[in-house]
């Protein structure tokens, strides 16, 4: 009987198969993120159960529900603190990234200088720049957000600069020959070939920089800072054993970091829709 049915509906099975494929493509957003969402929910539930079942002390690990309570109780204050620190992160991000791109553009103009300076830039990139936080606090004043912006700027400068230089120089030899065959001047080569070629590299660096800038701002606040800063709040609450509050602030910082990253990702999709990394996701 079952066999007969499949025989009879042979054609409609094929049709159903096609139908099944098309709506699946429309739902691909949900399909794509569903596993991540499930894993997230699973992790939160496990965490909560773990803390309750084993009666874990709050100073070791507060339960998600406790963190949520703290978050909703102190939301207004946390948002104010978060905004203060986000402004530091954004300021440093803007200064560091623009300087990184500008310096890279300048060095593309003087190739020999680039080759001489790149080893130093790469070395500087592996220096733990946060170690300078106390010194920069001293230069600009602990309470002054500029000291934090300076640290963030220095942190994001090197990856952005190095990646931009890479994008400006790693150009297809044929593409350069095409320009040469038209006797193109160096500005045309720079702006019509090297810069578009560098954009994917720059966006990769900006994504890294977005995450780094929030980390940099908070950690530099651990070395002392304005009372209305998120990093200062985290250290204070932790020192007074109010760990749920500290965790709530950390969660907020994570959300801000991820948001900054997503903003860069969105700008990237509009700026370089032609790049395989962007157009590949559309399938």
């Amino acid at each position, binding site marked *: 009987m079952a066999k007969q049915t499949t025989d009879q509906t042979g054609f409609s099975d094929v049709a159903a198969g096609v139908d099944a494929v098309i709506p699946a493509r429309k739902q691909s957003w949900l399909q794509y993120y569903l596993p991540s969402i499930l894993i997230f929910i699973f992790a939160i539930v496990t965490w909560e159960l773990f803390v309750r079942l084993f009666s874990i002390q709050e100073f070791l690990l507060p339960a998600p529900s406790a963190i949520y309570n703290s978050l909703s109780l102190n939301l207004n204050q946390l948002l104010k603190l978060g905004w203060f620190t986000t402004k530091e992160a954004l300021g440093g991000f803007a200064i560091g990234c623009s300087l990184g791109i500008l310096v890279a553009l300048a060095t593309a103009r003087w190739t020999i200088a680039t080759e001489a300076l790149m080893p130093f830039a790469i070395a500087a990139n592996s220096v733990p720049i946060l170690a300078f936080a106390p010194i920069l606090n001293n230069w600009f004043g602990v309470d002054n957000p500029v000291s934090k912006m300076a640290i963030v700027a220095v942190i994001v400068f090197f990856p952005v600069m190095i990646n931009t230089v890479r994008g400006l120089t790693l150009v*297809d030899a*044929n*593409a350069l*020959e*095409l320009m*040469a*065959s*038209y*006797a*193109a001047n160096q500005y*045309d080569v720079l702006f*019509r*070939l090297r810069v*578009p070629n560098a*954009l994917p590299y720059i966006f990769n660096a900006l994504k890294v920089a977005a995450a780094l800038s929030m980390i940099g701002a908070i950690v530099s606040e651990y070395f002392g800072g304005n009372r209305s800063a998120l990093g200062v709040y985290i250290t204070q609450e932790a020192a007074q054993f109010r760990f749920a509050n500290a965790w709530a602030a950390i969660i907020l910082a994570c959300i801000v970091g991820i948001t900054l990253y997503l903003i860069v990702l969105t700008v990237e999709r509009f700026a*370089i829709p*032609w*790049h*395989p990394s962007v*157009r590949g996701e559309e399938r």
Partner: protein
Amino acid sequence: MPPTVSIQNVSKLFNPGQANQVLALKEINLDILPGEFVSIIGPSGCGKSTLLRLIGDLTTPSSGAVLVNGKPAHQARLDQDYGMVFQAATLYEWRTVSKNVQLPLELKGIAKTERENRAKEMLALVELAGFENHHPWQLSGGMQQRVAIARALVTGPQLLLMDEPFGALDEMTRERMNQELHHIWEQTNKTAVFITHSIAEAVFLSTRVVVMSVRPGRITQVIDIDLPRHRDVTTREMTRYFELVNQGREALRRAEAGL
């Protein structure tokens, strides 16, 4: 009138003095007169692309001289005396098809509307009307190569340098493209240097076919194509056409044997 291209005793040695030293071209002599259509044919690696790049001043000879329009090749490049079709299509992936074709006009500072019109015209010529706003990755290899041809033609250069432009095309499209290229050459009295692996294509298009041999790359034979200057579908049915194709095949066989 000076020859459009004059290659005088040119040799090209890559990586001289190193373990991977290659004598890509040895003592090449070739004059190409205005209005000629010269095809270069020969086994892979015999230096065809290198020869074309020497004419375009994209590489320099190790010895000998290359003159274009009576000037050193370098000056001719600065004067933009030629249009080049590379062996790889070399389209910029961030530009649409139309914008790729417009690139040489942009470099010359030509206004937008004229650029767009000329690109449209050239794309129609290579049978790609309607693909203006596509991106290169949305086209097949043969279509990309035709965009590259449109780009080389768009500035209307008197000298065309083409490196296997129809390599990726199916037989029928290739014949139509040959007809179109012949038409352009005949109408505008351009000079063309054309690399191909197809003897039939070389004979159909050319006034002369240069046969090269490998290791070291050198010219082994030059075949005058004494067919009427105008070519069309009937050309491929002429007895003389068959004779010339056979002659070319024989010359290529000898070249591949290194004779």
